[in-house]
């Protein structure tokens, strides 16, 4: 069934069940996204894609809200812009966005300030370097959940990682804090492929960033590491 409604004052059509984000993209209307990815199930976690829908009390995440008959949607109202700007400022105050150029560009677009919440506690942790394929730097993680999703039913059906902790302490982790090789992980790196902020990164890319030369990196895995026998 085809639905007609208004988006930014323009009449648009949608198929039944289509999300507002999808309709906006079809009509060339730009709605920013961070946690949304075409290959994963949308969860409306980051809220950057919110829009204003007339008659609804709160802003609506366009990645999951479906188009409805006679809806009136504003994708860039003052309220929407303020919300997006605040979301970006909160992200910038608590996490390391240095590997997320798209989000940094978004901050410029929305005039978001890195100094808005100067005393905020930052979510910081040491780089987890426990396997030869990829590293995990959760100081750069914004908890978009994509890595967990592709490890589970959105791609790999391996279930090696999940959320751990609550509230501000929430982080992506393994069960019983096992190292990656000890989990069910098959090291496919689907998680690395969908990480939007460089929190997950191929080991070789990480080593280049650390100033290692290609020649140095190339000899790193050539010697047998001694391992503890495990009974």
């Amino acid at each position: 069934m085809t639905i007609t409604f208004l988006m930014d004052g323009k009449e648009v059509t949608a198929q039944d069940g289509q999300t507002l984000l999808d309709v906006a993209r079809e009509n060339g209307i730009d709605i920013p996204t961070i946690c949304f990815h075409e290959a994963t199930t949308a969860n409306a976690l980051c809220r950057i894609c919110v829009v204003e829908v007339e008659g609804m009390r709160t802003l609506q995440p366009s990645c999951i809200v479906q188009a409805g008959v006679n809806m009136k949607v504003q994708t860039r109202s003052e309220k929407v812009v303020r919300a997006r700007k605040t979301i970006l400022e909160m992200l910038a105050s608590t996490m390391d966005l240095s590997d997320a150029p798209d989000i940094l560009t978004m901050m410029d677009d929305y005039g978001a300030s890195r100094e808005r919440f100067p005393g905020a506690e930052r979510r910081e942790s040491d780089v987890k370097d426990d396997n030869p394929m990829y590293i995990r730097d959760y100081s750069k993680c914004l908890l978009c959940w994509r890595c967990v999703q592709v490890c589970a039913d959105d791609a790999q059906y391996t279930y090696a990682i999940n959320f751990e902790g609550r509230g501000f302490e929430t982080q992506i982790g393994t069960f019983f804090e096992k190292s990656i090789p000890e989990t069910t992980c098959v090291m496919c790196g689907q998680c690395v492929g969908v990480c939007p902020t460089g929190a997950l990164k191929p080991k070789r890319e990480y080593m280049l960033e650390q100033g290692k030369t290609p020649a140095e990196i190339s000899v790193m895995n050539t010697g047998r590491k001694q391992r503890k026998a495990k009974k």
Partner: protein
Amino acid sequence: MIKADRVVTSTCPYCGVGCTLQLHVKDDFIFKVTTPFESPVNHGNLCVKGRFGYDYIYHPKRVTTPLIRKTRQEAGKRTQAFDLSEWREVSWDEALDYVADNLVRIYKRDGSDAMAVYCCAKATNEDNYVLQKMYRALFRTNNVDHCTRLCHAGSVVALQQAVGSSAMSNTASQVVMNDVFIVTGSNTSENHPIIALQMKEAVQKHGAKMIVIDPRRIDLVDMAEMWLPLKPGTNVPVFSAMAHVIVKEDLVNWDFVKNRTENFDEFLESLEKFTPEYAEEISGVPAEDIRRAARMYATAKNAAIYWGMGISQLSHGTASAMALIHLAFLTGHVGRDGTGLNPLRGQNNVQGASDMGSMPFHYPGYMRVDNPDNRAKWENAWNIEEGGLSLKLGLTTTEILSNAHEGGIRALYIMGENPMMSEPNLNLTRHHMEQLEFIVAQDIFINESAAFADVFLPATPFAEKDGTFSNTDRRVQRVRAAHPPRGMSRPDWQIICDIALRIESRLGLSTAHWAYSNPEEILREMGSVNPDYAGITYDRIDKEGLIYPVPHMEHPGTPTLFKESFPRGKGKFHALDYVPVREQVDDEYPFILTTGRLLEHWHGGTMTRNSALNEIYPEARVEIHPADAEIHGIRNGDPVKVQSRRGEVVVRATVTEKTTVGVVFLPWHFHEAAANLLTNDVLDPQAKIPEFKACAVQVFPARESDLPNPEVVLDRGRY
């Protein structure tokens, strides 16, 4: 953040799935691999090998200078030289002249039958085409084969006999259109990981029912509707019993049988004895499960079969694949989208290498070499006098080595293959390699086979050359150089063409054309004679591959085969009998050994053992069932000796229900504990494929100090 100098789109060099890779290059060094989510093959997903396993390109042991052995090797006394100190670095001119001089010397003395070549399922279509052309056009021999003989020869022969074509009938991405599908003899999650994801998606998101028929409790069993754990090598009784049920319960698609097949009556007669109870007795699979699986497959709207080497790598591999084909014939589950007969091909380009005629019975395009009309076509294409090419069928991979003796094969050219790991009964293979008079190795590492060579020609891996790979579902895709070749190494096709020119001038032949300025000219030459590839140009496959047959320039490709008819006309049923595995268990050798592959490794290990992949799976483990382990006093991680009538290895045991009682499993990637020292070199009489999947062994406790590398211990949590 590292900014890439360039991002080059290419195709994965590991398995037959053919995933799209984006190689991120900085200072001529690939530091990251990604894949586009819109790729029709892998939809943004990769496995550990594709995403991380390319570092062998930069391994310090890679050889990038032509080498000649310092000590002259003699037939019968040939030795292996792994150390560079045993080789002399030479110029390309010296190496190529040395190869041409020796090959021509032996050819002039002993003739065509002394010459043989192993083409390579890892190399591009273009590389393979020119190499088989060199041997056919210059040395006038069909002793051309490659590792397809060792993986799917049984499937290829059965499909050729039954339908007249030997590739997957449908694409892998059609898995999600199946209502019911059978996975048999394939540990898909480890060997075709991305197809396994699509199988899981089909079950979880599209409501398909999966039936796993395999001696091992593989990862896919978690999501299967049924698991039929048959004893290795009992495929024919199980599949034939399923056919028996379909016939006896009248679940036959009679329209299909009448209109599309022939020889049904003879088949029916042979089927009579294959009752489910008979199959249960032989295979251990409960008769009732066989009935249920047969009904589920036969009554589905769309059903398909996917199979791997558990079907083909048997001394009755052809019959085993034939028994599966019968199921599709009886039910008509072939020739429509979401159905089909789908052998999952192992190597990235095993389909393509076969298409290119890297086989002893066929020119490119599966044209029989013993047919004078086919011969005339290639004589014309290669500028050869009438009647110049050989009509004699060549020797197969295993036969080439077993004929390595005075009066037999004297010179062997090996491109990228590693028979000293991949042949059965390696102690015998070693003996055969020693008998050769001259060996050329064209590779990137001095592997177990190249170590036997007289001359080493440093070729390039996939990331340093242009060309095409044809994946398991017949999709011809581009391979693109990400950076220039390391050192003095050169793309295979260039090395071959330079040698061919040298041979031609020494033999005084008029030229068969070797002056290609790029690999596309090679593909076009092949496509001008092989109609399957006639409509494929690099331009047409620039963005997305084409699925052959592509008979002309406007043709969109053919994802589903056999819609109207089979290439041979009607599908042909064959009467089958049950032939047991050649080597049966007894008191001395009470276990059946079955071999296979691991997610983290690739075949003989030339690539993955020289990669960080080796760090995450550093040792071979023999899998043994807890019930068997208890009887023999074997605990998880204990060193054990696995012994057959032909050889022995010492490895640690993994005590697991992933294998079944009476069956032990060993991966064959590890040279220090090579599973193929144990395997039986008995061949399928039609396909000449060895019986890798079943032989009799004993397992004894051993000491830590008996292990080849006691300090190395696998420590992984994956299933």
